[in-house]
């Protein structure tokens, strides 16, 4: 019964979130045909109003269609798995997702897991070495990384790794001469092409998870049960592994789950700088050309991803935290 309740709750939450997504995107200023209209007005030497009318016809966008009709169409489509239509790319959003999502998931999922596990390990290690040089060094490096804007870090990796050292390939997910497939040569090449975006995405995550883990560990080390364990004469490694890390990691699991949900949206900045063919690039394009259909579709994908990830996190949480299970 409780699972049914939970599912109902998820359904309502998804419905409300999608409704909000739709109305937020629809309330964005601008007209998706504006860019095309400007170029028509310039090349044909006509008024912008007339050009806009022609541009609406060309892209098949009717600004006069009642909002409520558009909303009902959107909801009906989304519940049958149709994420809409991109007026700019002249194709279904599903097709764009199908082409771009695997690359996004490839890079962002690896980056998220590398970021999480490396960050958590280093954060816990730093906390374990309290009052030593290591505990000064690690948080300082993490803080510096956190302070570097993502854009600067990505450009740095691109120029140093791709231009100066020539270690990273410039652009694309694989060389166009190669046929994609699940064979070792292709997988290795794809991994090599993903290295730049991977580094640019995972380094800030390592720092962020690391600082969070260190903070959590430092608090837990002060708890009575840890002191009691020390008095009992348990070895430091056992205390760290079984008493501190396990408890410190729990609050991070929920954040990780939400992060996994957000993965579906890609990383626009990194994908654009590295010319990587993921969802993030299309997000950027959708905003710049005001492709409301694509924007709504991609936002909906993220919303559904985050809600599902949160649901999975709750289940995971109850498995790894006996207190939650007991409740």
């Amino acid at each position: 019964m409780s699972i049914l309740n939970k599912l109902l709750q998820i359904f309502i939450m998804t419905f409300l979130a999608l409704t909000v997504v739709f109305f937020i995107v629809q309330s964005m200023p601008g007209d998706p045909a504006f860019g095309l209209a400007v170029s028509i007005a310039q090349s044909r030497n006509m008024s912008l109003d007339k050009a806009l009318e022609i541009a609406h016809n060309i892209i098949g966008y009717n600004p006069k269609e009642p909002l409520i009709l558009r909303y009902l169409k959107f909801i009906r489509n989304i519940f049958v798995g149709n994420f809409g239509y991109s007026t700019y790319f002249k194709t279904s959003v599903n097709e764009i997702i199908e082409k771009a999502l695997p690359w996004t998931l490839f890079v962002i999922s690896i980056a998220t897991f590398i970021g999480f596990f490396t960050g958590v390990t280093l954060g816990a290690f730093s906390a374990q070495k309290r009052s030593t040089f290591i505990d000064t060094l690690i948080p300082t490096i993490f803080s510096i990384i956190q302070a570097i804007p993502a854009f600067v870090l990505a450009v740095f990796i691109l120029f140093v790794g791709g231009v100066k050292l020539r270690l990273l390939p410039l652009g694309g997910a694989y060389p166009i001469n190669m046929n994609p497939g699940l064979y070792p040569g292709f997988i290795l090449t794809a991994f090599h092409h993903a290295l730049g975006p991977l580094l640019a995405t995972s380094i800030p995550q390592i720092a962020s998870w690391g600082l969070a883990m260190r903070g959590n560990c430092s608090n837990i080390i002060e708890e009575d049960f840890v002191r009691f364990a020390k008095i009992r004469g348990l070895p430091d490694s056992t205390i760290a592994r079984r008493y501190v890390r396990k408890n410190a990691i729990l609050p991070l699991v929920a954040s990780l789950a939400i992060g996994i949900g957000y993965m579906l949206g890609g990383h626009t900045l990194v994908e654009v700088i590295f010319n990587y063919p993921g969802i993030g690039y299309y997000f950027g394009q959708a905003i710049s050309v005001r492709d409301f259909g694509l924007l709504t579709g991609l936002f909906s994908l993220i919303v559904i991803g985050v809600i599902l990830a949160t649901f999975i996190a709750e289940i995971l949480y109850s498995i790894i935290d006996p207190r939650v299970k007991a409740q």
Partner: protein
Amino acid sequence: MKKLNLILIFILLLTIVLTLSSAQVKGPEIRFATTWPYPFHGNAFGPGAIGGAWWFAYEPFAYYIPATGEYIPRLAVSWKVEGNKLVVNLRKTKWSDGTPFTARDIECNVAFLQAMWEWPYEIAGVEVRSENNVALVLSSTHPFLIHSLLTDGAISTLAPSHVYGKFLTEAKEVAGLGRKIWELRTQGKTVPEDMKRDYDKKATALREKINNFSPIKEMGRMPVVGTYEPTKVTNTEMVLEKNKYHWEAGKIRIPRVVFRRWSSNEFVWASLVAGELDAAHPSIPKDVVDQFSLLNPGLKLKAVSDLSEFALVFNFEKPLFKDLNLRKAIAYALNRSKIRDIAAWQAKDISDYAHGVLKSMEKVWLAPDFLKTLTDYSYNPTKAEAILKEAGYTKGSDGLWRTSDGKIVAFTVSVYGPHSDWVLAAREITEQLKNFGFKVELKIIPEGMRDTVMRGGDYETAVEFGTAWWGFPNPATGYTRIYQGEVADFTRFPAKSKFKTPWGDLSPYDLTEKLQTVLSKPAEAKDYVAKLAYITNEYLPMIPFLEKVLPIFYLDGKRVTGWPKEDDPRWTLAPGGIERLYVLLLSQGELRPKY
């Protein structure tokens, strides 16, 4: 130690894979960057169409070189205007799938253009006279229209009849209806509602069919008549192979063109410096360019006029700017070279005149002796002060200029926010005019509001495009813009009034009309251009401060060589379609593999 071994093995594998993948490149290739919408349809009738492949896949009747005024025949061998017809002798050539290209293709193409893009309705009919001779029956033979029909890549080859022919009957019906509606509207008549409904219904049905039609998916290729055919497209790369049936195929020495997706300027910068691209035209700040030339000394830069100027325009509905003395004082008070340095360092400097002819084309159109007769507005704040004082303006103890009736000279400089180079210029103009003693404020026009603000006259002065030779690169286009087009709409300059000139009292509006009728007679055209230049310079409907340029970065000697010399007029083919320049150089075999 085990871990270290694993890492070393991984690096070794990567190296092998990379070596193998790079070895797969067959034959010489040239690499550019461009945007295109993916998934790729191979169908031109959508926004974005086929992106950078456009000029490679489609051929216009001719290319036009602005610097020389010369047409280079492409798909047309020759052409002439006969009465109300443009008669074109077509080149004997084939589509890339081997199908002969004929006059029927032009007929089909025009029907699709009118049906899908509602343009050019000025073509009233297409007469197929023989396989290689076609006449476009026109409702006007205005030189701008003739130029556009000859040079626009869309006019001739977007819709091959053997590919799009199955939709031709519907396309002709929609085009016919659309043209009828256009004619009624042009004549100022009301379009019957049932005609509109019928048109909307049929046009929507056709658009849906064409938008869903993908030659690439259905035929496995998109036959083109141009130099290169797109053969492989991924999310981030597009490969074009030489069209072996192209009439210049024998001359082409680089069989393959690769486009990288222009995802960001940073990516394009990095690719240029690393030698991964052979040419691109990103906007790059000066300090970054200096850095790049250190990293890759082979990288060269050619700045070509983008055929437009940035200018400070006045709103002539505001009484303040009806005073020519004030406009002249502003022209002298502005250090235009400095504005250029700050707003767009690569742009061409305009620090002397304001005559409305592009600085880069000045020598072609205006004789040096004539230029000497014009007022030179080089930066001279002392002269600006003298003009104001003589006109009765006074400078108060607060350092602000006042009109003869004691009002502080206060105004705003409006600028469209999303155009960052305009904003930089407007800030500098505001500062310079403040320092001179005017009370000036900067006003940012929000995104999407430019047309409303400027056409609505809700500004005092503004940074805008001044003269622009887009479409037909000729002074006539620029003066049409200033006295009859967008600038006239924005400024409300009294273009139909007569102004004193050495040739008597003349109206710039009438002169522009006359100029349009004598474009085929260079001597007469130059005469009208001089008169218009005089009025524009002496009566200042606007003050231009830089000529926009297109910076082309190219690598000579990495993969390819044979780029034109610095002063080659063909560089001026680049604005409005840089790929035309690449196509011309590739198809004539000038761009060739390094080895």
